[in-house]
């Protein structure tokens, strides 16, 4: 056996051991995670408002990211050699704005 194969086997064994040890708390749970699909949902009077709220949050997020993309395109048009830096910053800012929109949507539905 080459040393790479031996090392892979050794690491795999260690990994399985680690996973087995860390899975001990999981065995302590009663294992019935999907056991209540038949719990009837009570009538929810706020349900239409939840959907409206989610839609508004999406509008806000979409508008913000649209403005961001417009600014990024304008900056690239003015100075094409800064395209890389502008693109990276745009991606990061878009992820942050999207995080806010998603947080609002999650809050709407809980």
């Amino acid at each position: 056996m080459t040393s790479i194969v031996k090392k892979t086997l050794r690491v795999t064994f260690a990994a399985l051991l680690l996973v087995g040890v860390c899975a001990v708390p999981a065995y302590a749970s009663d294992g019935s995670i999907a056991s209540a699909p038949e719990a009837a949902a009570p009538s929810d009077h706020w349900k239409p408002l939840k959907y409206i709220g989610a839609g508004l949050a999406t509008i806000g997020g979409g508008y913000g990211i649209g403005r961001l993309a417009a600014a990024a395109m304008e900056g690239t048009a003015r100075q094409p050699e800064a395209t890389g830096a502008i693109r990276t910053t745009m991606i990061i800012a878009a992820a942050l704005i999207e995080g806010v929109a998603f947080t609002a949507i999650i809050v709407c539905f809980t």
Partner: protein
Amino acid sequence: MRPFLAEGDPNHSQVDTAFHHALNADAWEGAPVSKGVVMIGVGALAILIILAMIDKRSLVPRGLFRNAMESIALFVRDMTREAHLPDRYLPLFATFFLFILTLNLLGMIPIPQIGYTATSNLNVTGALASIVVLVSIVSGFAYHGPGGFVKLFVPSGLPGPLPFVLFVLEFAGFFIKHGVLMVRLFANMLAGHLVIGAFLGLIGDMGSAGMAALSIPLSLFVSCLELLVAFLQAYVFTLLGVLFVGGMVHADH
């Protein structure tokens, strides 16, 4: 007309089938662990096996795989260096990046019984964000001491009761920042699989082949978008983790 999949199977509804990458359930009938636990284990195992295949005999990587691993390592190292973090944080953020990327990508693979996107589980992303919180707080105390830790949240030279108000706001903002870190990853992963599930569930609702011809290309397109989001969210989580810990390590006030 209902498709055959939903008929005669009392244990699995059609919704479960369409959304099975977004719904956590027992790994198999009567299993003691859930799909999330199994997928975390599979992801960790995959990373460990990948890392074991790195050849430490030579400093120059040869071949596609080792070059790819080197580019990932350099990518994370440049991220930590740009925030002026000491190199001791490199293993942590490399682990974050690789682990989240692996979990996201494993969620795209349709593994028969246990396929599930582990990062679409709030508990998993909560655990990852909690590690960032822990590292931030411990780093703040280690680099600045208890008094300096409080001063991190308050800019110097403010009159009257303003420092106290500001401290409360900033401290709350600290936990909110990390909470949004958790929700961002969770929501992005969940949303992608929900959309795919919705498209595929429409096939069952309409029950026609024409709907399938419409839904399946759309869900394929959304899956490609999901791939992009998988990489992006791993990068954004790691980057924000670096920025948050960097903000605690370096007093910028």
